[in-house]
């Protein structure tokens, strides 16, 4: 990988310098566009992690094949009457953090 520095001008207000780090070295190939897009989105900080922590459990008896999701964070579960046939259980264990 090569550490690349990109300068972006957002809405004419300021010049931002963003360091795009991709350890797998994919920034120089066709996927650079995708990485750039996501880098911009990440700057706006969507509340993704919060949503992920409140994993819903959806139960259906309509489909002959229902996939059930189970999570240890049961207090955050939401129930739904929708006909989604996927249900899952998530156990949030420790999250390892890379020193880099």
């Amino acid at each position, binding site marked *: *990988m090569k550490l690349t520095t990109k300068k972006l001008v957002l809405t004419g207000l300021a010049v931002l310098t963003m360091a795009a780090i991709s*350890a*797998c070295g994919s920034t120089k*190939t066709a996927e650079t566009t995708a*990485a750039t897009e996501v880098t911009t989105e990440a700057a706006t900080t*969507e509340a*993704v992690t919060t949503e992920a922590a409140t994993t819903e459990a959806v139960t259906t008896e309509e489909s002959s094949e229902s996939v*059930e999701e189970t999570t240890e964070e049961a207090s955050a579960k939401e129930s739904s009457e929708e006909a989604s046939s*996927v249900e899952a*259980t998530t156990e949030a264990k420790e999250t390892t953090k890379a020193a880099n």
Partner: protein
Amino acid sequence: MKITYVHHSAFLADLWSAALLFDYTQGRLPDLDTNKPLFVFASHRHGDHYSDKIFDLGNGPREVHYVLSDDISRKKIGEEQSRHISFVKPGETLTLTYGTEGSLALEITTFKSTDEGVAFLIKVDGTVIYHAGDLNNWRWEGEPEEWNRNMAKNYSVEVDKLAGEKIDAAFLPLDPRQEENFYLGFDEFMRKAEVVHAFPMHCWDDYSVIERLKSMEVSIPYRDRIAMIERDGESFVLEQEPQIHE
């Protein structure tokens, strides 16, 4: 179990009760039994591992569920699609039950990538499958040695969690762009986990790296377990109880 190499890091595992598709972005998929659910995995947001094309797979009669790394943006995902998606972070265990009255289970454990997103360990139908995503020892000549050392350490931390784990099929990066360092991550994984069948990936269409690794002395303990991939669409039928060759 039948494994199909689709393209780059995309593989399809066709098992008894379900089919698993990993990191699909392009390429032809084999015909699948529509009575079996399809679980679609995406390890991280990079364009060579994730494409929203995967949501087209949910338009047919087959039941499809998506397991996506949490770093993939939700902004372009519709509400209807979201009902069929589980987002996962590193260090989580997700159990999906399916089949008649939830009699079948697919267990997913995630690991922290040394690049982006996660790697997957999946247990289903008595089979264990590992897809590294971009979890690899990304050592690059030209990078500061401290960076490379840190990379190696972080990789080892994750791989050590799988030490001694019997894995029936492991999809592991083998990237020719790393030059002399191309085999490091693959080699370490093969030495620590008990991999029955190893499938190189992330080769950027340069499959000569597979033979190159097999010709190296370091691969003596495991070279017979490395699948020779030569083109997109190649399939491999794995025995039910394969033996590990020392």
